[in-house]
C-alpha cells in the first residue's frame, strides 16, 4: 500500500498532504499513535530508534523524545498535542524551544474508518503557516508536488 504524497503549491504552498490505507481497524491504528511503547516500534525513518522521556497525550500535553539516527547522532524532539479526537484526529505541533531541532511544523493526522481498514491522512503545515482550522477533504486533489518537485529538481540539476 503505497503512500500517496502531494504538495499543493497552487492552492496552499505551505502544506504537504499524504495518504495511506492500512489493513487494520481504526482503533488499532489510532492506538499506535497514542502510546510511546507503540511509537517506539515504528516512529521515524528507517534506521532510527526513538527514546521517550515524557508523554502526555492530551491537548496541550507534550511528548518529549530523542531520535537516534543511524549516523549516531541524537535528535532532540518535542511534540505538543493540540487537539485529540479519539479515534479520528490528532493535531500536534512539532518543534519549538531552543533545546530541540530547529524544525517546526503543525501536523494533522486523520484516521478514517473504512470498515476493518483505515485510511490515514496526514497534513503538515510548513514553518510559520498561519493557524489553520481546515478539514482535509481535498487530499486527492493535490497534484502539485510531483510537478513542482520535478521542476525544482530540474533547476537544481541544470544549475549545479
Amino acid at each position: 500500500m503505497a503512500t500517496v504524497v502531494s504538495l499543493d503549491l497552487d492552492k496552499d504552498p505551505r502544506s504537504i498532504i499524504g495518504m495511506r490505507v492500512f489493513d487494520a481497524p481504526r482503533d488499532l491504528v489510532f492506538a499506535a499513535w497514542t502510546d510511546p511503547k507503540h511509537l517506539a516500534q515504528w516512529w521515524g525513518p528507517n534506521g532510527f530508534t526513538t527514546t521517550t522521556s515524557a508523554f502526555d497525550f492530551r491537548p496541550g500535553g507534550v511528548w518529549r523524545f530523542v531520535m537516534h539516527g543511524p549516523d549516531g547522532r541524537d535528535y532532540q524532539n518535542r511534540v505538543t498535542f493540540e487537539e485529540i479526537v479519539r479515534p479520528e484526529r490528532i493535531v500536534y505541533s512539532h518543534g519549538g524551544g531552543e533545546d530541540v531541532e530547529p524544525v517546526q511544523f503543525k501536523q494533522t493526522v486523520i484516521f478514517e474508518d473504512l470498515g476493518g481498514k483505515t485510511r490515514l491522512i496526514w497534513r503538515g503545515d510548513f514553518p510559520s503557516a498561519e493557524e489553520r482550522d481546515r478539514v482535509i477533504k481535498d487530499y486527492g486533489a493535490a497534484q502539485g508536488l510531483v510537478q513542482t518537485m520535478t521542476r525544482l529538481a530540474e533547476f537544481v540539476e541544470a544549475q549545479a
Partner: protein
Amino acid sequence: MDKLSLDAAFAALSDPTRRAILARLALGETSVTELAKPFAMSLPAVSKHLKVLERAGLIARGRAAQWRPCRIEPKALKDIDDWLGNYRRFFEESLDRLDDYLKKLQAQNPGEDKKGSDNGDGS
C-alpha cells in the same frame, strides 16, 4: 537551511508569477525586461517579485552589468528540495514501519481487532 530562510523561500514560492519567473530563469540568466515580457505586468511590478525572490535567496542579481542580470540560486532550491525530501521520507518510512507493526500486533492478538485498544470506544 535555517528556519527563517525556509519561511522566506516558501512564501516566495507561493506566488504563481514568481514560480514562472523561476522557471524562466532555470533556462539561463536574463534581464528584468526579458522576464517581464510573458506577463501582463509593469516593470516595477516584476521588480517587486524579483525582490521577494532575491530576499528569499532564490535568485541573485548581477551588480556588474548595467542591466543587472537575474539568475537562479541553485543552492536555495536544493535546500528546499532536501527539506521536503526529508519530511516525505520521515512519513513514508515511518508509515511503512507502522504497517509492519500493525500486522505484527494483529497476528499476536487477533482478538484485539474488535476492541482495538485501551483507548475506549472512540465515542
